[in-house]
């Protein structure tokens, strides 16, 4: 198996009584888009951070790709990209500088031509090269996300980790981002691991889903295998109806929350 191999990953927040991750194992294969799904607070973002070594957990994570091999932690960073969930903050920084920062491991005081060319190339592919000299504060939410993605791809990662890349985007931008990430993953043969909250998007774009519940993998496999009425009821506590689209992709129709009370608003 090649890709991101996660074995028996455990993590407990400092001062927390219960562990958040209680032994998670799965593999995000090279050339595949793997989506982590699960209810809020189940530990999806935390897991990405533990996998990347930004939080100290137990268990093993192996980046089993030829580019990384047994490189040390520092040298690995040249091949691993991570897009955080947080939005780019208001700043006077220009788009070009923000994109260049994606290659921070190789940047020197005087930016090398190779870094500049790579940044232009990435912005061109994402069609944001006309924004290069704009300050971040002048960009719309959708544009900011594209800049973040350019920053994530500019180093040509072989391991691509993204935390909710489509949060707060409208439908068109959401589709655009996921099409782009999927195409990148398949063409460049990256091991891509994304957290996604929209199950229909996950079902449509991911090659493989990992459904988390109570700090463990509840179900894993193709969207057809994971997106079932029973799995969703158990993991999310909701009732859904699922039917198949003409291309066999499961489409999910949310019906009601099982924890729903009978609401009585006294007037």
């Amino acid at each position, binding site marked *: 198996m090649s890709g991101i191999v996660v074995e028996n990953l455990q993590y407990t927040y400092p001062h927390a009584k219960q562990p958040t991750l209680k032994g998670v194992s799965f593999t995000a294969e090279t050339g595949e888009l793997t989506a982590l799904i699960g209810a809020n607070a189940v530990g999806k973002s935390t897991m990405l951070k533990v996998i990347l070594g*930004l939080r100290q957990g137990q268990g093993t994570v192996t980046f089993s790709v030829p580019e990384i091999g047994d490189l040390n932690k520092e040298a690995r*960073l040249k091949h*691993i990209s*991570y*897009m*955080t969930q*947080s939005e*780019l*903050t208001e*700043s*006077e*920084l*220009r788009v*070009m*500088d*923000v994109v260049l*920062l*994606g290659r*921070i*491991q190789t*940047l020197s*005081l005087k930016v090398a031509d190779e870094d500049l060319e790579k940044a*232009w190339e990435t912005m*061109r592919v994402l069609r944001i*090269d*006309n*924004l*290069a*000299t704009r*300050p971040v504060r002048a960009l719309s939410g959708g544009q900011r996300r594209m800049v973040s993605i350019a*920053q994530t791809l500019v180093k040509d990662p072989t391991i691509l980790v993204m935390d909710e890349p489509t949060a707060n985007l409208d439908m068109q931008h959401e589709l655009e981002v996921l099409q782009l990430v999927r195409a990148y993953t398949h063409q460049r043969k990256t091991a891509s691991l994304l957290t996604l909250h929209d199950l229909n998007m996950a079902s449509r774009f991911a090659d493989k889903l990992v459904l988390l519940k109570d700090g463990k993998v509840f179900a894993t496999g193709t969207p057809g295998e994971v997106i079932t009425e029973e799995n969703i009821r158990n993991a999310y506590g909701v009732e859904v109806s699922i039917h198949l689209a003409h291309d066999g992709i499961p489409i999910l129709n949310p019906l009601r929350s099982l924890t729903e009370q009978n609401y009585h608003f006294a007037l």
Partner: protein
Amino acid sequence: MNQISEQTAEKVSQARATYLGANKKKYIVIAVLAVLVFVSLIIDVLTGAAMLTPQEVLSTLFNPGGASAGTYVIIWQMRLPIALMAIAVGCALGSAGSVMQTILHNPLASPYTLGIGAAAGFGASLAIVMGLGNTGSAVLSFVFSMSICMLIWAMNRKSDISGGTLVLTGIALLFLFQALQALVQYGASETQNQNIVFWSFGSLQKTDWIKLAITSGIVAVCLPLIMRDSWKYTALMLGDEKAEGLGVKVGPLKMRAFVLVSLLAASAVCFTGSIGFIGLAGPHIARTLVGEDQRFYIPVSTICGAALLSIASIISKLIRPGLIFPIGIITSIIGVPFFFAIVARARRGGK
């Protein structure tokens, strides 16, 4: 269709040209400021209480042996080291302020507003009361300003308090040290009090070559170390979490920054007393001139600090010919309008 892509291509090459052009402009800004500092340095050496003609000053500078003993002392022991010290201290305060503002994400952070100047003042007044002399007051003020930096750092690390809260903490510490200094003054003799008051004005007049060498040495060592991390500081502009995501080790970076910044700030205030607003105004001007790309922002802020203090040094001698006003008073009087400008700008920017 073709037309559209041609238009886009044109737009893109325009964007490239604009980007590279903008970077070139920033180098020009640096060059212009450097010239400004140099001109200011010359004027600073030319002016002073002793009414020397420019010819006398220049001949003493280039041919020290040919000058009279009095002129030699005025130029080589007083004016030149003081004028150079204004630049060194300006560099130290300007760069320290810029890095503080970056790592604390707050445009109001500076060696003065974080209470570092006040701590140095307290250290110096303790030394004066204990009769430790000039060296003693420099050492004690250095120790106190370094320790307040470390205290601020520890508070920043221990809890996740925001840059804003931290600046408030700094201001609280400023009041604390001012009160402690007042307490020391309360028990001090009249002569000691005079010395303390003079020290707390902030003044370059006690400069000698050794002090100049120490301050500029620290600047010369710290600044390259800071510049080496300039891309990492730029990453911090995106927020600590984003920077961490890019692979920057935010904790160690900030630790390193704090040590260097403390050294810079302490090396400035320990010899000259509390000079306010250079560390606030320098970075502010730099941000307006070259934006927040730290490769340019930090050096420009450094040179702005030098220019401001050097110009202030000239003004301090021109207000009343024959008399030199303490430079700390001058910088604060220049500084307050800047402070208002920052607040007004922040409000407009917040819209």
